[in-house]
């Protein structure tokens, strides 16, 4: 049990568990927003686990999750679009969800980058971090923008 594993456990309990409870209760849009948050946090936990177990192949799971998580969230946006965007959420909700989905990414990716051997691994970790930030921000925006607000860029 090293510091990375302890950090992963803490992130699971403090971050992932509340997001999971958010998925399990409430109206549909809140569940989908919480699901987006949960995918980001799960990818970050995978990065911490790859450091904790010293197994670089674990970062591949974070990469796959960073690609597939936004896809899974945008499925809801595409199939339930009118229902999800029927009402506009309060600006505070939008801002909080955006910050919650973006802020933990550098807080985890940068320490992992510093601890990993410099070189291609660093670039890979930074790429995963950029994917996570972009996917999370895009999904939050697509889910909280009402129709005609310019946010319906899902094809």
């Amino acid at each position, binding site marked *: 049990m090293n510091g990375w594993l302890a950090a992963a456990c803490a992130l699971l309990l403090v971050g992932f568990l509340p997001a999971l409870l958010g*998925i399990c209760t409430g109206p549909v849009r809140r569940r989908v927003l919480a699901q987006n948050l*949960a995918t980001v946090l799960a990818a970050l936990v995978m990065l911490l686990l790859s450091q904790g177990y010293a197994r670089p192949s674990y970062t591949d799971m974070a990469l796959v*999750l960073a690609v597939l998580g936004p896809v899974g969230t945008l499925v809801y946006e595409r199939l339930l679009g009118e229902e999800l965007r029927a009402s506009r959420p309060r600006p505070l909700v939008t801002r909080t969800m955006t910050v919650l989905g973006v802020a933990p990414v550098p807080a985890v990716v940068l320490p992992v980058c510093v601890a990993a051997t410099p070189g291609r691994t660093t670039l890979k970790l930074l790429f995963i971090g950029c994917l996570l930030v972009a996917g999370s921000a895009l999904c939050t925006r697509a889910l909280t923008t009402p129709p005609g607000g310019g946010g319906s860029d899902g094809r």
Partner: protein
Amino acid sequence: MGGDLPVVVALLLVAVAGTAAVLARDPVRQAAVLAGLGLALALLFAVLQAPDVALSQLAVGTALTPLMVLLSVRKVRRKARSERREEHE
């Protein structure tokens, strides 16, 4: 005991998500809970040192399961709507 802590935490998450998936009644909401359960299971497999299983669980659980559930929900709703319209005519 210290080394088992991640496993215990992941098992707890799976138990929470699984219970919620059983208790959810509306299929749309259940699809979201199933996606969360898939994430929790992938984390459990990762903690149990099975990254390959976790990879396939991620591919199936996060994107494919909600897609299939939502596609069927949409089809059923459309069918119900068109039948109602036929009754009115």
